[in-house]
């Protein structure tokens, strides 16, 4: 069933909605921030699981002498579907006059989608720093109001009892 085959997306949606619910329904600012963090984690999981290619490995090329050959015959290759990511095999085959997209050449290695990894790589580190900035703001709010609960702060603001 295609429905179950996309289970990673269902997990992501459930996590994301839990995070969103916490942001909306909780009064405590720290809990709100953690909900936001959960939301962020779900986005990261979304991208990382999306980048997975069936049978694909990490996009780090193994020890190989193929690179000189690739550099020497660096002709543009028509891009196609997933199996086209077998860059080396394809180049190898093209060099020998083959025209199949999927070649069983030198090392028929399939790589995962590198672009989604790249996007999340920076997002994780930046997420840590933005969370820290948010927590710093909460700490200052707590310092000023004596509480980090939204409804209490609202009450203090209304009565001007600070």
């Amino acid at each position, binding site marked *: 069933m295609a429905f179950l085959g996309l289970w990673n997306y269902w997990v992501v949606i459930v996590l994301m*909605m839990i995070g969103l619910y916490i942001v909306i329904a909780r009064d405590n600012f720290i809990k709100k921030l953690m909900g936001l963090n959960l939301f962020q984690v779900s986005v990261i999981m979304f991208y990382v699981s999306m980048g997975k290619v069936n049978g694909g490995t990490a996009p780090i090329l193994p020890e190989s002498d193929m*690179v000189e050959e690739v550099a020497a015959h660096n002709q543009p290759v028509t891009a*196609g579907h997933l199996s086209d*990511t077998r860059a080396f095999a394809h180049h190898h085959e093209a060099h020998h006059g083959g025209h199949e997209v999927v070649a069983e050449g030198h090392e028929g290695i399939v790589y995962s989608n590198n672009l989604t990894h*790249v996007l999340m790589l920076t997002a994780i580190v930046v997420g840590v*720093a933005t969370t*820290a*900035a948010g927590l710093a703001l909460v*700490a200052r709010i707590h310092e000023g109001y004596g509480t980090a609960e939204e409804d209490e702060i609202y009450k203090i603001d209304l009565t001007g009892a600070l």
Partner: protein
Amino acid sequence: MKQLIGSVFVLVMGLFLWSLVPLLGPSAGYLSTYFTQHGVADNHTANLVTAVVVNYRGFDTLGEVLVLFASVSGATFVLRRRDGLPTAQPWPASEFLATGARALFAPLVVFGAYIFVHGHLTPGGGFQGGAVVASAVLMLLLVNRDRHLPHGLMTWLESLSGFGFVLTGLIGLAVGGSFLSNKGLMPLGEWNTLFSGGLIPIIYVLVGIKVGAELSALLDVMFHSTGDADHQEGQA
């Protein structure tokens, strides 16, 4: 009430996203295919993710570094210790923590440096290595909460590495014809050796230093912010 609104909103939003999922196609578009096929020939880096982070999407990475800088300086500004308010009282570190942290500090820094120096060869890079270095600083601060990081040094490290990133980008613009271009200036070197990839390792080391310095500065300011509990006691 809030709970009710929240549940309804979340339910509607979830159903909306749920209905979008079947529309998602395979993620590998022509860009990632291009990166996989030409990454090695263009940049001589074994780690294709690094080639994309630093070269193809280098401008975006510069933006990410900027966001990091902005959020760290924001947190620093908000948490800055003001005179007259007491800082949180340090508690003494246990013997386990103290000994372990002292033993692990230097290896962790070296390991972090290893990760960002080898960013173009192994799974790792400036962001990851910088985070490891910052974790070493965290252990140092956990053991000795009175210790301050040298502010001048951190500022210089941060500014110089950020400046270096932009400068290498501009050099690429001048020599190779586009911002962060990897052509012309530096030889690409032999693939899968330490000195390969042209400008990529240099930029990634700079990113590593910048991320490490920024996260360390963040930890420093969080450790030495005005103590909340003490402040409350003072008010009472």
